[in-house]
């Protein structure tokens, strides 16, 4: 277990440094690092501190959030298909964010954007849980997710199409596929408080999720308050997914792929899957963001494109496995 932790941490650190050093502008790696650490008052210092650092930080924060919330939802629903992107939580958060931007709420006060996205995410989680039920089968969960995410995506498109701003309609792609392009420290500051809250809540559910693997009665007998557990998972997920989506749009499949890959290494223990998925999610999003910057630097290739290319086949594989188990 400790070896896994060390490997994942090393991976995140290496990718984080690579994300800082690689970019569309050719910069000397050593000079860049010096400029960043000394917060040099040069243009290179500006580029490092105001462009690359926030982007790399957001990749870590958002990747960790998505991995963590995926692992938590899967543990709570005891279903390997639960993923905030797949079941429509991210799409509802995007609707909340778009509403905040288009109504002027985001401009009126700074926290309007993440708060509105959080509210959207909360509505999304509650809707899916209500539709699928707390112990719904994989099928009802996915169907409920499709309903919520397609409705939220349609409403997002509608709001953007109705906007008088000529750029808004083109941004549908951003909200559906996600990107970290041109984000700044302002966005780090907007997302961080909500994410920290969500991380604390989701980080605290490990014991409860472990107990839940024995069944609800056994968990209650072990002193787990299921009501509290449920509330922590719901609010924690809404907080981290809301904050992530508000600044980077919907990035799918991270919460599905990462726990799936890491599950065998932690002996399928939900509590261990939580922290390892957070690290794994951070690594995956860093790698994806480095790739989009290297492959098509001037085109702003969306992150969701990459994560879906990796995630969709895995999703197929998972469905296949789940079907075989239920037969």
């Amino acid at each position, binding site marked *: 277990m400790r070896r896994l932790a060390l490997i994942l941490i090393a991976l995140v650190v290496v990718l984080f440094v690579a994300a800082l050093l690689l970019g569309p*502008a050719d910069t000397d790696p050593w000079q860049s690092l010096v400029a960043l650490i000394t917060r040099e008052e040069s*243009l290179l210092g500006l580029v490092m501190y*105001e462009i690359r650092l926030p982007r790399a930080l957001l990749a870590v924060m958002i990747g960790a959030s998505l991995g963590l919330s995926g692992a938590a939802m899967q543990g709570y629903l005891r279903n390997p298909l639960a993923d905030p992107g797949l079941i429509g939580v991210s799409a509802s958060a995007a609707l909340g964010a778009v509403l905040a931007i*288009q109504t002027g709420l985001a401009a009126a006060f700074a926290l309007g954007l993440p708060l509105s996205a959080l509210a959207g995410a909360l509505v999304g989680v509650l809707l899916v849980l209500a539709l699928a039920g707390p112990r719904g089968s994989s099928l009802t969960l996915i169907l409920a997710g499709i309903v919520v995410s397609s409705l939220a995506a349609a409403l997002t498109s509608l709001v953007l199409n109705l906007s008088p*701003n000529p*750029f808004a309609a083109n941004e549908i792609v951003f909200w559906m596929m996600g990107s970290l392009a041109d984000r700044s420290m302002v966005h780090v500051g907007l997302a961080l408080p909500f994410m920290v809250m969500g991380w604390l809540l989701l980080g605290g559910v490990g014991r409860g999720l472990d107990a839940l693997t024995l069944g609800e009665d056994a968990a209650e007998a072990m002193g787990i308050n299921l009501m509290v557990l449920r509330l922590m998972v719901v609010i924690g997920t809404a907080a981290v997914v809301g904050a992530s989506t508000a600044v980077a749009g919907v990035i799918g499949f991270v919460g599905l792929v990462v726990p799936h890959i890491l599950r065998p290494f932690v002996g399928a223990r939900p509590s261990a899957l939580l922290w390892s998925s957070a690290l794994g999610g951070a690594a995956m999003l860093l790698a994806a963001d480095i790739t989009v910057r290297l492959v098509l630097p001037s085109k702003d290739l969306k992150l969701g494109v990459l994560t879906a290319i990796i995630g969709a086949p895995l999703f197929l594989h998972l469905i296949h496995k789940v079907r075989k188990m239920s037969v």
Partner: protein
Amino acid sequence: MIRAHLRNMVLGGVIGLIAPLVATAQDAPDVRPKRVVSINLCTDQLAMMLADPGQLVSVSVLAREPESSAMADEALGWPINHARAEEIFLLKPDLVVAGAFSSQATVQMLRKLGLPVEVFEPALSLEDVSAAMTRMGAALHQDARAADQVAGFEARLAALREQVVNRPRAAIYYANGYSVGDQSLSGHILATAGFDNIAREAGIPVAGNIPLEVLALLDPDVIITGQRYPAASRSEEILDHPVVRHLQDARLRGTIADRDWICGTPHVLRAVEGLIGLRHDYEAVARGAGE
């Protein structure tokens, strides 16, 4: 209902037969189009400048939008259309003028319905502005008026040109980091006003996106942005990025409204004038720093 429709068709047919006879009897050689409809922002403006009163029947809805149209007030004098084949056909035009960016489906449909459609390519240089005016003049059979306006435009443009020794390096920076290069209308206007375009250093000949960090490291002397559009968009957020703010505070900034150089019409002279003024400001600041 059906009977009324039939009666209209019959009457329409009869009038349709008589009308050409009357026309030929009165002014035989004049084939000047009498009902012209424009469905593109740029052809709207060219047509409004060149058409006889009553010759232009309708302009597109964009012509009235002050952010994108240089003739938004004038456009109030014409009925608007939304560039949809159905409404255009019902206006019974004898000429439709469209842009190369107009919907291909609409243009094809109108042609299939037997309407002549003239498609205008977007202007990519200041010479294209004169060419477009001449062509619109020919399409509307207003050649003399067009020649007049072309001469006026070219004279005013020639008067504006100045010898510039030290050309400042300018970046045109729009929403999403979009920029335009030398082989575009805006690029030509920028060069005419005496600037070097930083897009060349970024390897952009026509148009493309300059990543924020590339912009910062190219370190332009002047940053020129567009005006903001109503309501918010994520695309325009880049103009509030701390790096753009920092560059603008440390250097000279300018704004050229989209309406002044989005279309190749004589109104681009406003953009040329605005940019020359910006260069004079830059030279004054540079001289102040040198002393």
